[in-house]
């Protein structure tokens, strides 16, 4: 490796990262160009680039996208939503609480963007019928999607990457992050009641109208619904025991996807069209890009410097990682951030020789919860803002930040206390 290659590798990575962050160009096209340049300019040989791609992460993403896309065709989410509305007698606050529970649980089991894309359109139908402003419903849903997704390995892309790189299992995530996520959920729910005081009352006629919704009409295919629920259940069970079975989590996701594809008898082509290939290619390109940085030794250098700054103190490192990743994720895309941090922290762990467990939890909590800080912090936020705009409701950057940023700081502070008490 020559000095030219080192400079070239760092330059390609930095420029690509900068272009992704500024969002002036399509992030996938930018990441792919950067990855191609790493190989084309011989910073990273093609064989090495392929080695750097984490196929476990890619497998989980593709597998779960297939499972979710088939499951959603059954109408289960609309069915659950209408059932929830009836369970609370059409009262807006009750509807919100149940919708937030569904959002958080679904986000932990699916990914948070998918969850928001399923729950937000249903919420808009409900708020339309109740003749209520959808913002006090959708903003809490955004936050709870990001909070719920923090609890499991498959809930949010940063967790998938962390789990895949470190060998942390699905159940490790649930046991270690589940409790703090529940606390954050309850605190945030309570705060929403105060923030949006007076927004959860509707006219009696509207309440009666919402109760006339028929959950049975929501079921599009009852056979598919049963098959999807069974396969989804077994897939979750598989995630819970994948460590004990000695199987990678991607094997579970791909197996669930293959079985559901087989028994649903749906045309695979129709389902594959729904896979978010943009996301898949973004991940692949990022792995190659970060791999290039690793090849030129830049990550070793950065890890050395970080050890020097923190004196190898894991406690200091844990809190730095938690707050830096939270603030960074509030303004930047957390996927490239985590993709870079993982090899950096792995090297740092190898140099310092300390137990990195708390640091990995800090990275997960910071990167996942940080997305709640601003309107551009997570894809779910941007999508909901766009949907509201189309419905004639304006959710501005500042308007969101006034609610999201303080709540994000509260959730990260709770996480810091949790890590401090239980892991340090």
């Amino acid at each position, binding site marked *: 490796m020559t000095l030219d290659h080192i400079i070239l590798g760092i330059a390609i990575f930095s420029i690509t990262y900068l272009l992704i962050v500024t969002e002036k160009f399509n992030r996938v096209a930018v990441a792919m160009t950067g990855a191609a340049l790493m190989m084309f300019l011989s910073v990273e040989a093609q064989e090495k680039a392929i080695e750097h791609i984490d196929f476990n992460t890619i497998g989980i993403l593709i597998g779960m996208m297939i499972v979710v896309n088939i499951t*959603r065709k059954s*109408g289960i989410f609309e069915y659950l939503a209408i059932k929830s509305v009836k369970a609370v007698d059409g009262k807006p606050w009750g509807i919100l609480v149940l919708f937030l529970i569904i959002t958080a649980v679904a986000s932990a089991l699916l990914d948070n963007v998918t969850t928001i*894309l399923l729950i*937000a*359109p249903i919420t808009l139908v409900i708020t339309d019928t109740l003749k209520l402003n959808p913002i006090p419903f959708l903003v809490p849903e955004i936050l709870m999607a990001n909070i719920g997704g923090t609890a499991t390995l498959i809930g949010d892309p940063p967790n998938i990457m962390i789990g895949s790189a470190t060998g942390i299992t699905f159940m490790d995530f649930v046991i270690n992050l589940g409790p703090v996520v529940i606390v954050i959920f309850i605190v945030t729910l309570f705060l929403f009641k105060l923030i949006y005081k007076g927004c959860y009352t509707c006219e009696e006629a509207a309440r009666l109208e919402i109760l006339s*919704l028929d959950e049975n*009409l929501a079921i599009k295919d009852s056979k598919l619904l049963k098959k999807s629920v069974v396969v989804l259940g077994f897939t979750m069970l598989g995630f819970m025991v994948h460590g004990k079975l000695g199987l990678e989590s991607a094997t579970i996701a791909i197996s669930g996807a293959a079985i559901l594809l087989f028994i649903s008898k749906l045309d695979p082509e129709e389902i594959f069209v*729904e896979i978010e290939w943009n996301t898949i290619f973004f991940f692949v390109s990022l792995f190659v890009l970060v791999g290039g940085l690793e090849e030129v030794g830049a990550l070793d250098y950065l890890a050395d410097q970080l050890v020097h700054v923190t004196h190898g103190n894991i406690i200091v490192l844990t809190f730095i990682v938690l707050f830096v990743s939270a603030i960074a994720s509030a303004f930047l895309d957390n996927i490239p951030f985590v993709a870079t941090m993982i090899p950096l922290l792995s090297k740092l762990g190898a140099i310092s020789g300390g137990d990195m467990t708390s640091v990995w939890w800090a990275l997960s909590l910071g990167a996942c919860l940080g997305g709640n800080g601003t309107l551009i912090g997570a894809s779910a936020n941007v*999508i909901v803002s766009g*949907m509201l705009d189309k419905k004639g409701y304006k959710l501005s950057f500042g308007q969101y930040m006034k609610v999201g940023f303080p709540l994000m700081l509260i959730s990260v502070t709770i996480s810091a206390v949790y890590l401090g008490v239980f892991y340090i």
Partner: protein
Amino acid sequence: MKKIIGANELHQTMKLRQMGADIEVVHSRMCYVKFKINDIDLAYVYNINKKNEYFLERIKPYPLPLKAYKSEEDVVDVIAIDVEQFRNVCSSKNVNDFIEFLKQMKLTVNKFEDLILYYNVSKADINEFQDILSDLNKKIDQSKSESERLYFKKNPDFL
């Protein structure tokens, strides 16, 4: 983009299902086809899907559903004939009057639909509209018999 479309689809289909609709969602591609003949815009829209049903509609110079076809060759053939016929028509000095008249006809149909959907129209009025329509059809037949035929590759569909 795909995600947003999916969310919008869910929002709309949930409302429609609650109205009792049976919905089948089919992936398709929408094709916009444009021609310019003697300063007159001619445009069509059709969709391609795996079910081999092509819904063709002319959108300019005036909207007209042209029906569903089973193959894209049929769609291209229909457009080719339509364009050829418009080329003939466009060479006439009365072309703008024809187009204006057909736009007025379309507007009349829409107004009539509004009339029966929004108002309780009397039987006498409906009979009068039928008489006017009958006179118009007679006039079309008369005009056909007195005019020189210009296009022979295909016979008229309704005349």
